[in-house]
């Protein structure tokens, strides 16, 4: 027995040793302070985690080479982190173990997550810094952003960096997209059906009975009546749709400070009841309702409408504009119209309109050697304020450049000028986004905001399949879904 106790003691000893070792790993990193004289030219290696596809990485490498000419001592390791979620997981796991990349693609939700370990660098000082940096080719630049550079940003995209509730700037916008409504112009013209510019019928009547001909209600009923087999509306992201509706009807979705979740209210029940009716009439579908692998753009561009596999209106991201144009081999050919998504009331001016915008930004991570942070800042500034890079990346990835000076750039100017809804649909999307820039809004970011976004998708899917019954039974069904979503968010 004595021996057994001895061996158990030995086991505990070894384990506690490992435990102490693990516990005392360098925990707290000092908050970043700009070193004297900014970047001191020392040799520094920084890692840049992006979620770019292979094809866009080529463009980035070109400009990294150019950056190398300006700052030869900074070597940039570009790591591809896979799609956005994988990228977030890899960074999250590194952060949980005290490591981090220097510079990374991110969404506002991700930064809110990273910030729970205080790893993200606050950019305000860097932006304001006037320290002079001399580049290898002798030219000089101030460390921070000049006024001109700051105003060049599209305000909504720039402000997204500050949407964390504490007014501090955590990220710079890199490339953005917004939501647009694509519609089958040939059919609309042949039916002389006006393009809907607001959602619900103002006279409260349903379907074809309503006199409000420019409402989506009327349009959907009309299309469905014309082609009984089709699914009039295809919405790519159900979550974006609900967040936009709650923002447009000002009924509340979330806010960045406690208490975060505001969507559980009477008005929203009404909205979801109507959407449920639309779904039961088979007037719309979304990507996740189709199982997540079938894209609503494929419905919009499909030829035959048997089994509902055709839609005449498609709401999707401006980044995917090219896919909303019917390809030659699909046999369907019609001209595609593209406009702003419907608003709360008819003919809402752009300034009062509300359209959600998304897209990757760039954030910096704390590092032991402040030089690494400054070097990463220089790289981020170099890429984002470089209109040529923004234009080429935007055009290739279907994203919208975040700086307006891109429009004057000769290459990009032609794209905007001969933008059409045919082969140059991407150019048309970019043109419209620039037009709608006052209407853009961003959903608030906080720890758990990405979970809230997921719950919106689940909420929409849940409400629209609430089984038929008395009006009250349906209402209770919908309320239950809201309660469940709120509980999941607050959990």
């Amino acid at each position: 027995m004595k021996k057994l106790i001895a061996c158990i003691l030995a086991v505990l000893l070894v384990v506690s040793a490992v435990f102490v070792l693990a516990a005392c790993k360098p925990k707290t990193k000092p908050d970043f302070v700009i070193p004297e004289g900014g970047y001191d030219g020392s040799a520094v290696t920084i890692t840049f985690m992006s979620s770019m596809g292979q094809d866009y990485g080529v463009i980035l490498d070109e400009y990294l080479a150019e950056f190398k000419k300006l700052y030869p001592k900074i070597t940039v390791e570009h790591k591809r982190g896979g799609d956005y979620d994988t990228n977030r997981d890899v960074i999250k796991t590194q952060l949980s173990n005290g490591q981090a990349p220097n510079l990374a693609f991110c969404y506002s939700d991700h930064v809110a997550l990273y910030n729970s370990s205080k790893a993200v660098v606050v950019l305000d000082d860097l932006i304001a810094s006037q320290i002079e940096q001399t580049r290898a080719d002798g030219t000089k630049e101030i460390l921070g952003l000049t006024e001109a550079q700051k105003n060049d940003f599209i305000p909504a995209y720039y402000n997204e960096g500050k949407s964390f509730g504490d007014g501090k700037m955590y990220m710079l916008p890199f490339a953005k997209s917004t939501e647009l409504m694509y519609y089958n112009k040939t059919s609309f013209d042949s039916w002389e059906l006006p393009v809907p510019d607001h959602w619900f019928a103002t006279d409260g009547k349903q379907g074809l009975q309503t006199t409000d001909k420019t409402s989506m209600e009327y349009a959907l009923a009309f299309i469905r009546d014309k082609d009984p087999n089709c699914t009039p509306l295809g919405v790519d992201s159900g979550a974006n749709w609900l967040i936009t509706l709650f923002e447009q009807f000002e009924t509340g979705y979330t806010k960045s400070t406690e208490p975060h979740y505001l969507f559980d209210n009477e008005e929203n029940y009404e909205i979801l009841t109507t959407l449920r009716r639309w779904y039961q009439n088979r007037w719309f579908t979304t990507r996740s309702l189709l199982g997540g692998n079938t894209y609503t753009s494929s419905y919009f561009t499909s030829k035959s409408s048997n089994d509902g596999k055709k839609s005449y209106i498609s709401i999707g991201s401006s980044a995917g504009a090219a896919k909303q144009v019917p390809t030659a081999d699909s046999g369907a050919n019609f001209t595609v119209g593209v406009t702003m998504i419907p608003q709360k009331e008819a003919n809402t001016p752009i300034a009062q309109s509300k359209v959600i915008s998304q897209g990757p930004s760039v954030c910096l991570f704390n590092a032991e050697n402040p030089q690494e942070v400054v070097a990463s800042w220089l790289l981020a500034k170099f890429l984002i304020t470089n209109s040529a890079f923004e234009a080429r990346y935007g055009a290739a990835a279907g994203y919208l450049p975040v700086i307006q000076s891109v429009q004057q750039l000769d290459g990009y100017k032609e794209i905007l000028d001969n933008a059409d809804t045919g082969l140059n649909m991407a150019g048309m999307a970019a043109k419209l986004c620039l037009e709608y820039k006052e209407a853009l809004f961003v959903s608030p970011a906080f720890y758990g905001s990405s979970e809230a976004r997921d719950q919106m998708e689940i909420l929409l899917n849940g409400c629209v399949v609430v089984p038929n019954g008395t009006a009250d039974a349906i209402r209770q069904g919908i309320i239950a879904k809201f309660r469940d979503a709120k509980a999941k968010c607050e959990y």
Partner: protein
Amino acid sequence: MVDSKKQWKAWLYLSPVIILTLVFTVWPIINTVRIAFLNDYTLMGDAGGMTFSVGVKNFQKVIQYPDFLICLKNTILLTVITVPISTFLALLIAVCLNSIKVLNKLLQTIYFLPYVTNTIAIGMVFATMFSMVGSGFGGADPYISTAGIINNILGVFGIEPVNWVNAGSTYWANMFVMIVYIVWNALPFKILILLGGLQSVNKQYYEAAKVDGTSRVRTFFRITVPMLSPMLAYVIITGFIGGFKEYSSVVGVFGEGMGPAGTEGTLNTMVGFINTNLMGKKPREGIASAGALILFVIIFAVTMLNMYVSKKRVHY
């Protein structure tokens, strides 16, 4: 006569196992227990220097999870249904396989194939087999057209196609698909073990039974099953342990949402809950560890129960 030299040598042979187990098994367990009792512990927060109070808040949080009961119910239901079915089917197949000569080798190879494949890929195949197409699922009169093979086959027999996995499909339709998939995946290992067991049973018991005029059914229940009871007990115990850890099969068929569109999460399992708190968008390792400990306690209790039952009824 256990002299110390022998002792020392035994520990020497076991040293690699012990060291590796200490570092990669014992330490994680201790760390998990440690984390489970640190309220609202998150790895990122810990890395960022946050401090955490000690308490049982994590465990309360696990219970308060709105879908906790759903996760528990799914885990238990899936295990309690699939383990008996797959064990009985495997036993039947093993006995039949053992009684035929022709094609024996080929069939053995076929039955072992699922063991060799990638769970996620086959999950996707099952999802497409049971899928429907069209946009009207869950609506008042959903399109009944279907792309899935299973519904097509049902069509041959004039049976109305069923909405198995798409939006608006019922809970039990989803469970049926999951049960078929889990049993399909669990059979190979069980057949292998039971077939091995059958081959080591002394032939003379069967000859004696034959001479006594025992019917096939009675031979099966009164001789084969008791003689195989050690293997059966082993297969059932590991079956339960595996069953409680079911997760990747649900992900294979329904994706990370753990349920069809519109009813996401209805098929979530305990391990699914732990994973959402580990890898999800709001990682809380404290709650995940607490959930894992609760699951471990359940598995431990069930295994002890299984051991106890098998001690009684198994003949060694």
